[in-house]
């Protein structure tokens, strides 16, 4: 699978491209686009469910990457995580914006997620090589599922509570405990 054979140069390529973006090189942004846009649409699609919204999120993300490239600081983190953080923030804003603006349409969060986005399916696709997979496996399935639902589908505490018919306080404390357990395992 492509994600298992990431070239070691990929991360530095992105960081070099961000550096070039900061000095106004549009071709550098296009390099990032060619390398990541398809995966980015996939990530946004899991959060937003609708293709048009996912594309809008990716479009906005590239404008933001371009605008803020000068602020990217390799000392503080990797280029890829920076780009995906921008995409996730933008997607979540669209998701929450959509939710608070009541329309006659079905709110995005209530649209059916693809089965591929089920927590256990996502688990099965996680690379064996990643510490995260082994550590998630130490959590009871339901707790692991809650963490994955939040990250993959962008559900809020309240939405997770509603979906699993659990009190919101329980959801909150389960997530906190799960994060602390995960962190102990991840080191």
């Amino acid at each position, binding site marked *: 699978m*492509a*994600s298992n054979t990431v070239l070691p140069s990929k991360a530095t390529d992105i960081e070099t491209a961000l550096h070039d973006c900061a000095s106004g090189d*549009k071709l550098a*942004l296009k390099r990032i*686009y060619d390398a990541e*846009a*398809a*995966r980015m*649409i*996939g*990530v946004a699609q*899991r959060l937003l469910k609708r*293709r048009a919204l*996912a*594309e*809008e999120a*990716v*479009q*906005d993300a*590239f*404008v*933001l990457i*371009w*605008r*803020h490239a000068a602020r990217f600081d390799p000392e*503080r*983190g*990797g280029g*890829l*995580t920076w780009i*995906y953080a921008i995409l*996730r*923030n*933008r997607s*979540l*804003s669209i998701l*929450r*914006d959509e939710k*608070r*603006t009541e329309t006659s349409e079905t709110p995005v969060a209530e649209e059916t997620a693809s089965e591929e986005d089920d927590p256990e399916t*996502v688990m099965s*696709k*996680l*690379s064996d090589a*990643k*510490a*995260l997979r082994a550590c998630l496996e130490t959590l009871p399935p339901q707790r692991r599922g809650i963490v*994955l639902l*939040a*990250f993959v589908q*962008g559900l*809020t*505490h309240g939405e997770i509570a509603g979906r699993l018919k659990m009190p919101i306080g329980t959801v909150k404390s389960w*997530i*906190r405990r799960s*994060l*602390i357990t*995960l*962190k102990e395992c*991840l080191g």
Partner: protein
Amino acid sequence: MSPSSTSVLGPEERIALAGEYVLGLLEGADLTAFDQRLETDPDLAAAVERWRVHFAAIDATAKPIGPPAELWSRIEIELAKVAQQAAPASSSSAAPVSSPIQASRSTPATASHLSDWWNSLFVWRSAALAGALATIVLAAGLLGALDRARRQPVMVAVLLTEASVAAAVVNTFADGRVEMVPLQAIHVPEGKALEIWTLWDRAVGPRSVGLIERARSTHLRLDQLPLGKDQLFEITLEPATGSPTGRPTGPVIAKGTTAQAL
């Protein structure tokens, strides 16, 4: 209850909070407080980065979806607008209506068709609004109460934070003035500003009506925009020069909808 408002975080608190942030579970005032904290707390920023690196493995499982051919050209159009905004506004269109910024959200093939529709709707709405305002002003004049009408808001929106605290009010007046008055201090980090938005139609999306560097009373620029009951106003935290995308990008500080004043 809100751990982000305390000044010192325990190690577990820090890990859990950073993890919740990366999961996208912090909202409203908690999110704003966390964002502020991130700027001054390198340890917290490092904890966030570590979570991002770990969770990146999950994003790597997303199925790649080939972008449509025109997505890159849409991005290029937006980049060109960013460049234009940076330069002093060159008013290429003399029309009283701002250009259809939403066009970029549809495909190029349908953009001009949509913008025609949009323009006519806009014109129609503006005309209706102007008519409504004229009626109000005339009625007030006939009653000899124009002066009172000028001082008393026609509609009021109370903007609430996520925690349902009233953070600001928006008053609209019969003469078309719209003002926002903050009711509490709002912390604005260095390099950031508060942007005020209004939304009257989902199909159009939110429009920026003001940008202030700190919480203070300000007039909102709704010149050509519709204004009615149940219209959403909200304040978001944006870069000092305003949202780079023309839509809200930062956390929502407060929001509320207009209601008729008695």
